[in-house]
């Protein structure tokens, strides 16, 4: 069952094209991440669904109903603003109750609904406080409860974690995902942080320059990026102008390619390499090592090209200037606006080992 459908949306701000023929559909009950760099048009899409912006052309459906001409208040949505936009002079209770009082619900109904939501967000004892008396994470949860209070069909969240410090952010991500699933509500959140999108969303829609580049489950996008942009944007990557210089890839057309750190196997000695060692193993010089918490990042230069890979903490440490063995499992090669996965020749031809 489709909850939200966006059809051929276009939107300009002056000369700037914020949405370029955007179309997608979202199933009911899914938590969707709209991911893209800043200026890619993701927030504009969210604001158009909410009715805070009007598209130049195209149609928007919520719950099967065309909403283009409906004001935001009648679209059945809840909106969480990036800055939360809590009403400063109202208590937590009054903030959460606002949407219900506008609908002229009875006092007892309002009271029970607000108490229920305050319980949900874990701020039951804070309902008489003012927003400025709360921490960033608490404010975000109040904004969340306020958006949920009138029972919207669809929850829209604009960069919900942007204003929160790193540690609290981690907790809130998990909490938000659980809570949204528990409520069974459809939700779309905007983010520029791929870790956040991958961790929180059921599905990701990647936007770039006003267009939708790719959509799908996080793992699917990670493993098979359809366009060069997605390949570069998702995951850590090093771009090489011509990947045919590397052993095992020399039989292809000379093209641009992308290498992820996890595509590289870096060994200090032959023993550390896959046995038997493939003939397409390269030798390189270590140019730098960086402690990255759970792994060590090693920058290796091969044929004047600096590549990036990871090694475990328990492995023999490498130092700047050391020689290292490098095996490249695969490369994302670009073919126009498509991406293809190219495997090392050694992996296809099982026979080619030393």
């Amino acid at each position, binding site marked *: 069952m489709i909850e939200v459908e966006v059809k051929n949306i276009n939107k300009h701000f002056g000369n700037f094209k914020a949405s370029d023929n955007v179309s997608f559909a979202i199933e009911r009950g899914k938590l969707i991440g709209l991911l893209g760099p800043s200026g890619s048009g993701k927030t504009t899409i969210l604001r158009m669904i909410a009715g*805070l912006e009007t598209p130049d052309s195209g149609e928007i459906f919520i719950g099967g109903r065309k909403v283009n001409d409906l004001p935001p208040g009648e679209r059945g949505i809840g909106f969480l603003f990036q*800055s939360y936009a809590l*009403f400063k002079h109202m208590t937590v209770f009054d903030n959460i109750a*606002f949407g219900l009082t506008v*609908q002229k619900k009875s006092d007892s109904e309002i009271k029970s609904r607000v108490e229920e939501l305050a319980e949900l967000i874990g701020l039951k004892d804070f309902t008489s406080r003012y927003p*400025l008396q*709360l*921490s960033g994470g608490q404010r975000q949860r109040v904004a969340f409860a306020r958006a949920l209070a009138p029972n919207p069909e669809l929850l829209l969240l604009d960069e919900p974690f942007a204003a929160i410090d790193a540690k609290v952010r981690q907790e809130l991500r998990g909490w938000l995902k659980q809570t949204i699933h528990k409520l069974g509500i459809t939700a779309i959140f905007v983010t520029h942080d791929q870790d956040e999108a991958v961790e929180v969303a059921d599905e990701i829609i990647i936007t770039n320059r006003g267009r939708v580049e790719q959509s799908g489950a996080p793992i699917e996008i990670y493993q098979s990026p359809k366009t060069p942009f997605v390949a570069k944007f998702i995951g850590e990557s090093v771009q090489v102008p011509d990947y045919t210089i590397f052993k095992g890839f020399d039989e292809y057309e000379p093209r641009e390619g992308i290498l992820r750190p996890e595509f590289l196997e870096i060994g200090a000695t032959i023993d550390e390499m896959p046995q038997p060692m493939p003939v397409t193993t390269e030798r390189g010089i270590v140019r730098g090592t960086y402690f990255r918490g759970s792994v060590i990042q090693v920058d290796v230069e091969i044929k004047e090209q600096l590549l990036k890979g990871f090694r475990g903490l328990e492995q023999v440490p490498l130092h700047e200037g050391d020689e290292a063995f490098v095996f490249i499992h695969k490369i994302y090669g670009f073919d126009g606006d498509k991406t293809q996965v190219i495997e090392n020749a050694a992996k296809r031809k099982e026979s080619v080992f030393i």
Partner: protein
Amino acid sequence: MAASFLFVMLIMPLILVAKEALSKGVDFYFAALTDEFALKALYLTIEATILAVALNTIFGLASAWLLTKFDFCGKTFLGSLIDLPFAISPVVAGLFFIMLFGRMSPLYPLLQEYNLAIVFAVPGIILATVFVTFPFITRELVPVMESQGRSEEEAAATMGANGWTIFRRVTLPNIKWALGYGIVLCSARALGEFGAVSVVSGHIRGKTNTLPLHIEILYNEYNFTAAFAVASVLVLLAIIILILRNLIENAGKASLQVSNLKAGVAND
């Protein structure tokens, strides 16, 4: 040096007003205040002030809302236009209204026909007062509303609140101190306006004289003590206005500080 400058320039005139006003005794002082023409001038001053402030409050709220909540072309121009009365001498402003409604105006025969007196009458005084105080409230509200942004209002709109509800419950509590401040400044200027009102009033004693004009007449009649007695009333009003001004400013600051303080405590 600063203190002696302020003492000579600001405090001595105040002391002098009190001294001169009481120079012929308390009885004379109250007689001057309760004089028929003085009372009538007081009523007219209050009437003109209340009306001008009310009109400018409506205008100030509407124009500030328009200038901060919407984008349209000509916005900067409209903003400067509203400030225009600051650049125009009150006497010239009064002249505008004479030109518009006086004997040389094309409207004059029409006004005569319907027996409407505008200049040299109360409506003219109110018009001139509105003109000179035109920018006050808008100028106080616009920066505050600008810094508040639009997102609280947008949030209210996504929850289905209508314009009046948004204004009353979301915007007004955020701007109440600035609005109060603007109203106080506007009242001060309206109470004391002399040049513009002097031009349009026609100085008809007991009819179109405001308190400042009444002072001028008394003074020019060499009735100095009475002039200072009436002036002392305006001095008192001015002091009240200054006190109000400071109270509002402090209340606005305090509400900000208290919430910041609590915000600091609440960090978890």
